[in-house]
Every structure is written in C-alpha cells, then in structure tokens.
C-alpha cells in the first residue's frame, strides 16, 4: 500500500489529509497517479489537472511528473511552500 498525503490548501480542497492506496499495476509514475486521482470527482479533477501548480514528493524527496513510484512509497502532494 502506498501512503498518500495532502497538505495545506490541497488538503482543504480534497477534505482529506492522507490515505492508504493500493496502486493499480499500470501506475508507475507521478504523472500517472495524478491522472488517476483526477478521475475521483470535481474537486480532485480541479486539483490534479495540468494547470494547477502542485508540488510532489516521493519518500520525502521532491519529485517530478516522470518520477517512478511504487506501492511502498510515501507520496505527498502540496501547493508551493510559503514558510519563513
């Protein structure tokens, strides 16, 4: 099971901070996971479409659309950071 995390405005938009997900076998990259999540409904589609600026990390390292993911990973999505 992959662990998915959502932070800040994304967490609020999805009304969810985390979930366990058994990755379908044909989902092996971040981009594929985003496409999959976007099919879950209006909020999800809005959040995971191409134009939404969304950052992603895999196992707590910043990742890209083509980064590989597996069923054992911790994958987090979040908006651009605004700390400091």
């Amino acid at each position: 099971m992959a662990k998915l995390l959502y932070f800040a405005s994304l967490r609020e938009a999805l009304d969810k901070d985390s979930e366990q997900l058994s990755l379908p076998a044909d989902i092996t990259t971040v981009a594929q996971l985003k496409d999959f999540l976007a099919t879950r409904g209006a909020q999800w589609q809005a959040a995971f479409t191409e134009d939404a600026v969304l950052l992603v990390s895999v196992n707590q390292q910043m990742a890209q659309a083509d980064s590989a993911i597996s069923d054992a990973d911790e994958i987090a999505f979040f908006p651009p950071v605004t700390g400091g």
Partner: protein
Amino acid sequence: MLISVQTEDFDVTEVSRQLCKNRQDIGAITTFSGQVRDKSPDRNLLALELEHYPGMTEKSLTAIAEQAQSRWDIDDLAVIHRVGRLAPGENIVLVVVISAHRKDAFAACEFLMDYLKTQAPFWKKEITKNGEHWVEFKDSDRQASERWD
C-alpha cells in the same frame, strides 16, 4: 547544527549563546528573525496558522543547512521554525550563523532564509476578521532563491 520545528517560542540571545558555547574563535554572529506581520492598514489579521510536513520539513531544513555549510566558511548554524497558530508580532522563524568572518556569516544567513522560503515544506494561512485564506507563493521569493543557484 541545530534544526528544530516547534510550537514554542525561541530566544535569539539564548540560541546564539548555545552555538558559541566554549568557543573563542567566533568573530561574527548573524541572525534573522521573521515575525508575523499585519500588512492590513486596519489591523485585520488575527493570527497566522503554520502547517508543515513532519519528517520531510526537518529533512529539507537539514539539507539546506548542509548546503550553507559547504558553500561558506561558517562554524555552526541554527534554524528554528515555529508551527501552529501565531499572533501578529510573534516570532515565526530564526536563523543564526556563527563564523570567524562576517561576510560568510551574512551570506549564509541570507541564503538559508531564501532557500527556506522556497524549498522547505511550510504553508501559512492568514486568519483575518474577514475570513481565512492561504498565503500565496511570492515570485520575489523565487527570484531571491534563484540568485544563489
């Protein structure tokens, strides 16, 4: 190296003293403190809510700190970032750099802040009298960060 994400406040003098303890080779201490700032003309801001990504936030602060140490001649540093609900005027973030040389201490301190602003997973939400909203990412922060690349 002192890296901390915490709800409690910090004291600049105390943290500086801790870094310099038992040392006599430190000529320069630079610090940056960020505070909750009410930009509204009519004092609309009630609080700031700071969210982070436990685990990854600490890791990215450590990575940024290690980069600073490899790029400048500095002796030690501290990065403390608060999370949770903070009122206007309260401390948010502290960076302290100690070094024999002031130029390196200044550069490393500014670099740490610029990188922290764009690369460490923290998010701010403003709680105002008229409602709540997430603080937007600032392009000036991206530019400040990119000049170190």
